[in-house]
């Protein structure tokens, strides 16, 4: 009996269902709602895995082209992709750490001055996944893994919004909403740089700026576009003979490269659809329970929360961060290490946010320089993160945003130190 129960609970999809089920039961939802909510979460997990399969196919064709053409390992940072891949191995541990991490977040908000409730569910999932992978790579398992993992995730969920709050007050002009996105360290550095360089610089919102780049807010379009360019360069460098004999089975190498890039975007689209279903019941339950238990809590929300406050800073930040990413890439090439290729998604969301934060403290100059530095940060951090991720470090994609890098590098190297 116990064995059957353990077998069931060791299936990550079912475990996610159990987390949703608990949330729904605590909220005393009706039976049909409980049933459909639980099923949808399980469905989400399975869909996510399907997206990962498509993505892997496309990535597996990418790295040989880069190797052949340039002679280095190219890595494309994408949180959704790496998490979807990692969940195939660390799904169970991630699900438990995510569920308990939310409990730890509520406890911290209830009993300390950090009143923040981290509502960006997909980032909780990504962080739980990365922490699980690093702990497992360092020999943790069982109860110890789950307890340490959920303490770390829960603490980050309360701490990161607190670090961002001083600048958030400047941006939004109020104190009852907080910022919850695991790129916070990059944004806070951007705000700090804004303060240093931005004396007397006017706000980005005083200039007239074309809004033509806004179509890039559409994630699938942005990914298909960047990956198209990156795959095309890789295919051209690798040459038609290599691609057509080794990879495409005779299909024209340019067409092959473009289709693979679209395949990558399709994979991410499916993963996002899965994440949407998976979180659909868990986040409202988390929010409802937190509001009940922590009456004066502050909801910490995803990064687009700040975009409407400074729409020009969003565009300037994205461009500046992307240029930072390109400069960083060339530095890595010249250092002959693993090369992090600039992805539009991390640079759009993180760069734009860094732009808004930099603008809040240092106007135009703050937005430009702050976001540029953010672009460098999210290019260099993944290089140092890869070695601590264990087997995951070899998957040609990795976690992009700043906090994953900082937390992962610190955690991985601390554990190594203790291990010795």
């Amino acid at each position, binding site marked *: 009996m116990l064995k059957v129960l353990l077998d069931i609970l060791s299936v990550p999809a079912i475990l996610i269902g159990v987390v949703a089920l608990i949330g729904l039961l605590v909220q005393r939802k009706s039976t049909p709602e409980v049933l459909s909510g639980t099923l949808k979460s399980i469905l989400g997990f399975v869909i996510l895995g399907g997206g990962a399969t498509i993505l892997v196919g496309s990535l597996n064709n990418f790295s040989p082209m880069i190797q052949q053409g340039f002679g280095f390992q190219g890595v494309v940072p994408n949180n959704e992709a790496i998490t979807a891949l990692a969940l195939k191995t660390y799904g169970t541990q991630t699900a438990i750490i995510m569920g308990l991490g939310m409990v730890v977040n509520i406890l911290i908000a209830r009993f300390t001055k950090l009143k923040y409730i981290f509502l960006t569910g997909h980032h909780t999932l990504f962080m739980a996944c990365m922490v699980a992978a690093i702990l497992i790579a360092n020999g943790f398992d069982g109860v110890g893994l789950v307890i340490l993992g959920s303490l770390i995730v829960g603490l980050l969920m309360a701490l990161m919004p607190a670090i961002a709050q001083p600048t958030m007050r400047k941006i939004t002009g109020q104190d009852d909403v907080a910022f919850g996105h695991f790129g916070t360290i990059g944004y806070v550095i951007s705000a700090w740089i804004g303060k240093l360089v931005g004396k007397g610089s006017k706000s980005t919102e005083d200039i007239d700026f074309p809004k033509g780049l806004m179509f890039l807010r*559409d*994630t699938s379009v942005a990914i298909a576009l960047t990956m198209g360019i990156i795959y095309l360069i890789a295919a051209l460098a690798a040459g038609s003979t290599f691609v057509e004999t080794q990879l495409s089975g005779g299909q024209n190498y340019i067409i092959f490269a473009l289709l693979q890039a679209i395949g990558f975007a399709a994979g991410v689209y499916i993963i996002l659809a899965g994440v949407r279903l998976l979180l659909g019941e868990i986040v409202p339950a988390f929010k409802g329970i937190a509001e009940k238990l922590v009456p004066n809590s502050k909801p910490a929300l995803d990064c687009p929360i700040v975009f409407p406050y400074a729409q020009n800073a*969003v565009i300037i930040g994205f461009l500046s961060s992307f240029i930072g990413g390109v400069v960083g890439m060339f530095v890595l090439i010249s250092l002959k290490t693993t090369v992090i290729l600039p992805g539009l998604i991390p640079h759009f969301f993180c760069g734009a946010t860094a732009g808004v934060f930099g603008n809040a403290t240092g106007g135009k100059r703050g937005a430009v320089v702050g976001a540029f530095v953010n672009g460098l940060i999210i290019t260099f951090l993944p290089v140092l993160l890869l070695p601590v991720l264990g087997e995951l470090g070899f998957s040609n994609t990795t976690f992009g945003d700043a906090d994953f890098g900082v937390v992962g590098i610190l955690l991985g190297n601390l554990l190594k130190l203790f291990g010795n």
Partner: protein
Amino acid sequence: MKILVCCGNGIGSSFMIEMNVKKILKEMKVDLDVDHADLTSAKSAKADIYIATRDIATQLEGLGGEVVTLNNMIDFKELKTKLQSVLTQLKVL
């Protein structure tokens, strides 16, 4: 009748706004279908009312539904006023 809340990724901001929309509809005692989506999906998902913040709302025009543009995604009052007026216009209220 269906309300679709949109944002770039369709998992963070739109989800938060959706929860507020549901809360408001409950207060108004109106039972409508509310969902959230990314911009790509929104273009193929039929809805009567699309909601988004002003930085992306223009991309939802021409899809065949009313577009509610929010200046501030966390301003509960703004959302309520705008929702009320669009629902009155569509004769739901």
